[in-house]
């Protein structure tokens, strides 16, 4: 019973990760795919943060009372990863905007059909 509760956080992470993965491979709309990537990314963040948690620990800001602190290292990694994530997301969105300009659509099928036509010409 204890181990089920202890591992439950991993299962949530995996569930979220697979949700994002499904969107990326199954949906045709490019904006939707980026949202899927975002879900995937957030699940990885959650995995790291839950690894850093120590039972009975406190936020890693030293004060006079607490003696047990959670692990600050994953926090640092994820903090920077979130901001880098939004920057790379912006690059992805910018690419989508350019694809919209070039193809007139952000649906994968349309873009492929367009490419096939261009190849056969």
């Amino acid at each position, binding site marked *: 019973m204890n181990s089920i509760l202890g591992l439950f956080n991993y299962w949530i992470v995996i569930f979220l990760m697979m949700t994002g993965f*499904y969107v990326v491979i199954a949906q045709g709309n490019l904006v939707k795919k980026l949202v899927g990537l975002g*879900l995937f990314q957030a699940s990885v963040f959650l995995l790291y943060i839950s690894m850093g948690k120590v039972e009975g620990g406190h936020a890693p800001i030293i004060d006079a009372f607490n003696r*047990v602190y959670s692990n600050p290292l994953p926090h640092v990694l994820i*903090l920077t990863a979130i*901001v880098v994530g*939004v920057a790379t997301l912006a*690059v992805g969105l*910018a690419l989508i905007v350019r694809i919209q300009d070039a193809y007139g659509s952000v649906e994968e099928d349309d873009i492929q059909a367009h490419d096939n036509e261009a190849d056969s010409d």
Partner: protein
Amino acid sequence: MTAIAAIRQRDLFAVVMLFGIYSLLTAGLFMNLDAVDVAFTEAAVGAGTTTVLMLSTLRLTGRYQRRSSHSPLLPLLVVTVTGAALVYGTLDAPLLGDPGAPAHQHVAPRYIESGLKEVGTPNLVTAVLASYRGYDTLGETLVIFTAGLAVLLLLGVTPCVSQRPQAEPLDDQAVLKLVVKVLIPLVLLYGLYVQFHGDYGAGGGFQAGVIFATGFVLYGLVFGDGNVQRVLPPHGLRRLAACGVLLYGGVGLVSLFRGGAFLDYDQLATDPIAGQHLGIFLVELGVGLNVFAVVMLIFFAFSSRRGEP
């Protein structure tokens, strides 16, 4: 569960909104897991900036998604098999909150035990971010800068500074404008507090940069980009982003020339603790400037394409 709702919807506007809610919920969860700094960042970035960027993209690409022509069965199968394999992998993983987990054995105890003595900042996340792992953070600052450059190269910013003071996009929303007017100074003040108080409480350059930028983005959304660009011209922002990175690298070089290692703040002053304080302050300032300028540039890049067909 918001995640499920988000993938079922084909109205992309609703998807983006649900994604914002999902981010905010994640931030709450981080808070619960003792990661206050991370929760902070996620709330500012995920629920604020990401949503605005995605909405600006939707403006350009259209709101509705077409029904997919492919059968969802094959992807579903792939996903289920991968998920099952991952669940199997977790069966010998350390339990949540186990103090004996491998993640807590290597360098973390040292950071926690000697962080206050060696660096002098009570917030260990700041100490690790700016001092112990200063190289990583420099790299990440560079990535953000590069991403900003990439967006500019892809989209470009057409300056609308020379135009007449633009017609405000939400002219008739008096209540909204009033609320925003009251909120913005508070948001900016809070950004400054987060920037300069990051050594002691939760916060730091990354969060402050985003919060500060959010204030200006809010203004831009309600009162028009032209008005923001008169205060923050894009060419100035480009220099500001570069200055942030240079400031960070410069601190490293100064410590190198004073006889220490690259980014060894002990060399910056006669007393190591004072040196660490100065170093962290400057580095966080560099990060804050860079993040702020890049987020603003990205926002302008998206919003300035709005008028085109």
